[in-house]
């Protein structure tokens, strides 16, 4: 149980970090929409069109670190299971 939780903590940390890096490691807050520029051919004017898309920000690896750290810390309260022949004292 302890081992499984620790592995889960590491997986949480690595996945949140990996997700953020895969998104280009943006040095900003997360966004729920991304702007794409469109140009009007007659006037030459450009406008941003918003696409609804989640982009992780710096909070993502930070939250992954916090959650993984909390999960790992919780495993310290689990008693280590000893082999059957070992004395408990």
């Amino acid at each position, binding site marked *: 149980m302890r081992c499984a939780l620790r592995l889960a903590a590491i997986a949480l940390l690595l996945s949140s970090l990996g997700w953020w890096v895969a998104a280009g490691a*943006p*040095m*900003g*807050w*997360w*966004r*729920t*929409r*991304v*702007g794409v520029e*469109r140009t*009007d051919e*007659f*006037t*030459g*004017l*450009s*406008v*941003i069109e*918003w696409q609804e898309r989640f*982009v992780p*920000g*710096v909070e993502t690896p930070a939250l992954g670190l916090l959650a993984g750290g909390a999960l790992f810390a919780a495993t310290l309260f689990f008693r280590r299971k000893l082999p059957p022949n070992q004395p408990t004292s």
Partner: protein
Amino acid sequence: MTTIHRSVSLALILAAAGLSAAPQTFDFKDPKGVNNVQFHLDAPLESISGQGTGLSGSVVFDPATPETITGRIVLATASLTVGNPTMLEHLRGANWLEVAKYPEIVFEAKRVQRAVTEGAAIKAEVAGVLTVKGVSKEITVPVTFTHLPDKLGARLNKPDLKGDLLVLRSTFAINRSDFGIQAGQNTDKVSEQIELTLSLAGAAAR
């Protein structure tokens, strides 16, 4: 008879010249949704950039006398948007633009201080009054006007529609404290200066 004929011809010529140089009123409510104002502020982590597209208003423009430009451009504050939802909530909230109480940002052009024709464009310094969050301030902004005669129908894909386009471009900066926007506060998190870029096309149907 010859004198009368010459007088009538002269009158017709003068009338035609007057018609072609008449000032036109351009409407800036864009059916194609391209008109926009983009804003940009520096911040320590990531600069804040966004856009507003709820533009309306009108400008009276005569290409023969560009120094006589007058007009009013209105931005609906509810149309302002940024990519982060929490930031958007703050932007529209009571501490920043207070969109519910101040639904419009208005620029009223009063006079042109300098107009120079450069090719197809007219570059001018336009003095007027900018009203943000209920605070009005006189400012002068550089504006580039490009008059596109007979392009309205082609732009809207309606060949039967006759009219002209007037394209306005401007980039200038304001200080948020001049308009009572978190004056003197959060200067370590959000820059005092707001850079604005206007990209507008107005239409005058004939």
